[in-house]
Structures are given as C-alpha cells and as structure tokens.
C-alpha cells in the first residue's frame, strides 16, 4: 500500500510525531514498503474466523474495592519534567 504525504501527516498528528521533509520522505517509503509486505495476509482465507481479543487464559480477575498502594504527593511529582509544589505543569494549548 502506498502512503501519500497527506496520510503521513494525519497519522503523524494522531501519534504526536513530526518529521522534516527528508524524514517524512523516508518514513513514507518505509511505511509503504512494510505495508506492502504485510498485505500478504490477504492471501489467507479468514472466512468465519473470530478475531482473537485476549491471550489471557484467565477470567474475572477483579480487585476488592479497598484503598491501597498509592504514591505520596512528593513521590508522584518527583519525576515531573515541570512542576510546582502541587501540580504537574504543561504548556498551554495555543489557539
């Protein structure tokens, strides 16, 4: 499947990635190549086959409703790239 520049831009935006012109060119090529390759799956007759939605062999793995295992305020904020004494901080959405 050939990917065009517009599709690349849309997908990049969804993934919050950006590419310069050369990077976009390469990524488009790589993706097209890989998608061409995976398309061989269309050779497989999957008529009547249910998609697999879990690889777990367990069911009803549930937690009792009790409070436990939290991080303290300081511990939680410790790794924050930007913070003040109470909050995580991020740049504002600019319209």
């Amino acid at each position, binding site marked *: 499947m050939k*990917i065009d520049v517009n599709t690349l831009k849309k*997908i990049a935006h969804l993934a919050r990635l*950006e590419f310069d012109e050369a990077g976009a060119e390469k*990524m488009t090529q790589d993706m097209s190549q890989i998608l061409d390759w995976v398309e061989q*799956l269309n050779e497989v007759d999957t008529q009547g086959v249910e998609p697999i939605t879990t690889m777990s062999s367990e069911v009803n793995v549930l937690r009792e409703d009790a409070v436990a295992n939290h991080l303290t305020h300081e511990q939680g904020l*410790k790794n924050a790239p930007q913070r003040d004494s109470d909050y*995580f901080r991020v740049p504002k959405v600019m319209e």
Partner: protein
Amino acid sequence: MEKFISFDEIKKSLENRETDCSAIVKYYLQNIQTKAHLNAFVEVYEQSALAQAELINEKIASGKAGRLAGMVIGIKDVLCYDAHEANASSKILQGFESQFTGTAVQRLIDEDAIVIGRLNCDEFGMGSSNENSVHGRVLNAADETRVPGGSSGGSAVAVQANLCTVSLGTDTGGSVRQPAAFTGIVGIKPTYSRVSRWGLIAYASSFDTIGVFSKTVKDNALVMEIMAGHDNFDSTASRKPVPKYSELLHFDKRVKIAYIKETIESPALQPEIKANTLAVLEKLKNEGHQVEEVDFPLLKYTLPTYYILTTAEASSNLSRFDGVKYGYRTPNAHNLESMYKLTRSEGFGEEVKRRIMLGTFVLSASYYDAYFTKAQKVRRMIKESTEDLLNKFDYIIMPTTPSTAFKFGEHSNDPVAMYLEDLFTVQASVSGVPALSIPNGKDKLGLPIGLQIITNSFKEAELYAFANYLSAFNSN
C-alpha cells in the same frame, strides 16, 4: 579460566567455603570492567551489589539464605527496579527512576539473587540487533564486528561473556531466543502469561514475556520456577500452579517430534544451520524418538501478523511518553501540541517511530478491519494450528534464526530485511506457547548456532527436560 559457568558450581564453591558472595560479585565486576567495550551493561550497581553480597554471606552463615544465594543477575533496561533508573534504552526515559520493583525481579531478590546491573537493549524492545539503543550498540563477544542479536542483546552478552550468572531479558517476538542463538547460550520465552508483566515496560502487551538467559538449562529452569506464577498486579497472569522445573529435568521417554517443512526448506536459511538442525533430528531418530516432517502453510504469515499486532499495541503503549508526568520533555516547545510532537520526535529513535506510525496506521478507522482485525483472525488460526500440532506432537524443533550473527549495519536501510530475522521465532510469540533456544554448534566462522524447541502452553517442565536432554547431545 572462566569460573562459575553454572550456578551449581557457585553453590558447590560456597558450600566448600572456597568462595563467598563478595568474591563472586568481585569476580563479575572485574569481568564487567575488562569487557566494558562490549557495552552490555548500561549501569553497574557496584556498591549495592557488594553490600548485598555481605548481607547474604551472613544469611548463608546463619542458614537463612534463599535458593538463589550466590547467584548474580543482570536485568534488561526495560525491567523496573525501585529507586533505580530504567530507560528502555531510550532518550525519552533518560533520568527516569522507577518507583517500584517488578514482580519477577522482586521474586529473585527475595531468594537472595544479587542484581549487579542494568543491561543494554534495543529501544523499547524493538529490534533484532541491539543497534537501536540510546546507550550505543552491544558487541557480540564471539565476534566483535557482529551484532549480539536483539532486543535483549545486552542480557545475552552479559551471560555469554561471564559478566553475571544469569540475566533477565524480554521476548516479544524472539528477543531472548534470537540473541541466545547468536551468542551461544540458553534462552527461554515462557508461555505468555506464565510470568507477571508487572514491572515490564510494555512493548506489545499480548506478546511480551520476561525470559531468562543462562549457560545451563538447569539454571534457567531454577530462575523461571522462582519468577513464574500468579501475581495480584497483573490481570492477565496465569493462576495455574508452577511446577518445580529445576527438579523435573529427568528425561528418559521416547517422544514425538515434528519439524516444519517451511522452516527447514526456507530459502533464507543458512546452510550450516540447516545442517546442524537436521543432524539433531537424525540423532533423535536414532535414539528411538519419532521424528516427522509436517506442513505449516501459515508459517510465512506469522511475521506480518506479528508486525501488524505488535506495532498496533506498541503505538498505544508508548502514548504515555508525552513529557507530562516523567521522562524527557523537549526544551523547544512553545505550546502543548509542539511540546508533544517535539518531545516524542526528539525522544524516540527511528525504529520506534516507524513502529508507532505503523501501529497508528493499522488502528486508524479506515484501515482497522483490513489490517488489525485481519491480523487478529490470522493470529487465531496460527495459534490454533500450532496448538493442534503440539497436541499431536510433544515438541516442534526448528532453527532459532535463519542466519548466524550478522555484521553491524547489515540491515540498517531495510526494515523488512531486519524483520525477517524473526522468521522462526515469531510463531511461538503469536501462539503464546513457550519456546527455548539451546546452542547447537557453530558455523565455519565460529559463530554460534541456535536450536529452538517449542512445546504447548504451560509445559515448561517438559520443555526444560527435553532441552536438558538435547544439551547432552552437543557438549560444546
């Protein structure tokens, strides 16, 4: 003279008071230093390992030591260890310190294994050569111009070069087995959900497993036995009881073995690997086992199935790396959107970005059914066919890899060529079944060859026993 090839040796030395834990740790620290250029270790916990050693010496003296006392382990840079950095070999997690220890690692520590350091790998587990790491590439000790395999390259080399007794890696599509083959050691991918994923930095959630590298099958079995089993923190972890693998290594049955035509006859298969594999099969026949060739027409579809599903899951798992709560944040952003885009574009390597893009694409609304749903269906078919085969046969044997260790840069420009390295390992990952690689000779350049054994889900005991038996075939 290499000491401590196996844990049995270590235990014996300890019992005979020939050594103690501090000496063992110092021995490995020395090796790590001598072989530093291999770049297996990202960080060495010299102080804490020595401190731990002293504590365990005391425990041994008072008869209170755990089952792994004397064992020194390394853990892959995707395994969380409280108050220690875990970077997933990525710039986006540089400086990040885990605030809890994963279950698998904790269980080994609880039995007095000493964690000597953090091991290099491909970024987020994505790669087959350990060339995609922010910490730089890892060299194969068998030939330093060649890759050790990946993604758990560092973990493999650490055991290969005697930098620790046993190491933990992770195997999502072959990332333990392939490097084990390239470096001539034992490596296992357990049944999916056999070992808790709590503390494993996720790549593809329905494929990820924690695996073990070792020199001997017995050491591997012991570590797996201790790590495996139900965990309250992992909703997918199996509740099935864990047999004592290390005590079940005895093997004297006659078994039924299948080998898949499409693997042996693959045009990508290096002739020496084919020859060595066939030699093992021949010997098994001579020993009275039933060895049969079978068809597995779905084999070629295992790779595309794997890449569609793992990239999809990865694209979602890696969304949390956004510069908000932890990890790298770009210094160049002026608003939220650019903060996200620059952080992630600057923080992730090429291969990771490629897989995120692919995964995002196959999950996107217009393509979901054509790619993702299709792959989920084919996965079911592959899984069920593999399980059927393993119901008729006790084991499947195949080469672990199509080639021996390749040279650095060989696949750098061709992602698909790199993906094809996983040709023989992804079937077990797609199916969820356990698979193990043991050394099976060398090629004419002296590069290790691996033999892969696969069995049905939750039959690690049978797998280890047979692997142990096969190891006696070729004493290298």
